[in-house]
């Protein structure tokens, strides 16, 4: 409960900071609509030449696109800005202020920086997903919806743990920013199902940079092609990575000596 209250406080802080720059909202809205528009146009160009891409129909890929923007928006809303702030704090030694607060430090650093205008991306992604779901219509039962929710949650946890582990590396190597940039550039591969990629790229996107779990697996759940095994695997991986990230974080702060003090 106190975690939720804390999240709300950080969210309000982020909102107060950003409400000073209201024009940014319209810029963000314009950019979100433009990038979704171009992505949908690209899809319809591809599907003007074929009816299925590696077994995926157009509506299913529109759903995947919605998930891609939704998850990407969540990453840009809180995960990426908070983790970048964390690395900066480690570099400057200002992490001291966070660590002295009487709350769980992992929770504090994970919510530290919230860029509320990115909610526009989340909302736009959700809208695309909703439209795709309506068009997919009857094919979606309660079981599939539950599988989708579970897959999306697992994907979110995997991505969060992945970022936290990389950002925690900053305690030992001060410059790890670059690896995170690689994630962002690889993430763009997630708007297509990973099954279309050649094996070396597919395994990179699955295990090295877990883009597949964030977008393809939830979309598979929606189109009913997700096996129980994959879903269990994703859930197990999420639990494992989360536990490891937490352990690694604790080791990291024990190693932290405060650059400024």
């Amino acid at each position, binding site marked *: 409960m106190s975690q939720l209250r804390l999240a709300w406080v950080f969210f309000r802080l982020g909102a107060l900071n950003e409400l000073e720059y209201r024009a940014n909202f319209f810029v963000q809205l314009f950019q979100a609509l433009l990038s979704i528009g171009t992505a949908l146009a690209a899809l319809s*160009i591809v599907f003007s*030449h074929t009816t299925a*891409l590696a077994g995926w129909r157009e509506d299913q890929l529109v759903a995947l696109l919605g998930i891609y923007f939704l998850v990407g928006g969540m990453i840009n809303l809180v995960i990426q800005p908070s983790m970048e702030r964390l690395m900066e704090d480690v570099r400057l030694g200002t992490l001291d202020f966070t660590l002295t607060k009487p709350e769980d430090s992992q929770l504090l650093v994970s919510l530290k920086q919230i860029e509320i205008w990115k909610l526009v991306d989340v909302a736009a992604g959700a809208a695309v997903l909703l439209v795709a779901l309506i068009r997919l219509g009857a094919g979606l039962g309660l079981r599939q919806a539950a599988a989708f929710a579970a897959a999306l949650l697992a994907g979110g946890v995997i991505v969060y743990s992945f970022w936290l582990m990389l950002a925690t590396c900053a305690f030992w190597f001060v410059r790890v920013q670059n690896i995170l940039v690689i994630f962002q*550039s690889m993430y763009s591969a997630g708007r297509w199902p990973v099954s279309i990629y050649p094996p070396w*790229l597919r395994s990179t996107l699955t295990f090295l940079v877990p883009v597949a779990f964030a977008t393809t697996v939830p979309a598979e759940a929606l189109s009913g092609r997700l096996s129980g095994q994959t879903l269990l695997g994703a859930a197990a991986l999420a639990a494992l990575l989360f536990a490891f990230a937490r352990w690694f974080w604790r080791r990291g702060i024990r190693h932290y000596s405060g650059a400024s003090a």
Partner: protein
Amino acid sequence: MKPMAEGCNDKRGLPMIDLLDAYAAHFKAYIALQLQYRAELVIWLLGMVLEPVIYLVVWSSVARSSGGQVGGFTPAGFAAYYILFTLVNHATFSWIMHEFEFRIRNGEFSPRLLRPIHPIHSDIADNLTYKLLTSAVMLPAAIVLSLVFQPSFATPLWAIPLFVPALALGFLVRFFFEWVLALAAFWTTRVAAINQMYFAALLFFSGRMAPLALLPAPIQAAGNVLPFRWMISFPVELLLGRLSPSAALAGLGIQLLWLLAALAVLHLGWQQALRRYTAVGA
């Protein structure tokens, strides 16, 4: 001042061997400077290569599922298209639209304007030097892509000499066009939205998302008129042998027209922009 001048006089008698040594030292220092940023270079390369690889994979998959080819492209044909596209895109791209906002917001333009030479010259020189350096990673990357995706080329011999001016004109059209668009920063300071619109147009009309031949007819028609095809797609189509000799010559003419238009707008726009400039932050 005097001892320095004397020092210079001493240098005048430098033997040739020492001069070569100095060059070698400069070269080494420059390489060392660049190697400091090798992680950045890898990230940059990933960004340049990943997107064409994604579209290559998508279109190859479409080709395979519709009987081995789509719009005259086989998977090997798409591989040739996208590998060439990556190289031409590398040769013609500029980062000027990203940099202008920064330059103006920080008043960085002031020293540039004081120099007795148009600031565009240093941008061109920087661009060419950077391309020369990054070719050292781009060409090996293209070779690796060729080994992985097995492209098939059907380049007619006559197209090869025409490719050189087509590529040079593509670079110039794109460079001047982006420089003109970047001038918008003099008026709005925040140019992210304008840049994104430009890149969306580039995605469809320059052949980046798909070879132009695969686009719906109205978009193709618009693409022939707009400048984007002539920046990247045209040299690629030429080298792939998808154009007739007369179409190739006509294309060079259109490139030339766009270059002249861009130069004219640049001339007018620059004068207006200078009048607007108030040196923010300086």
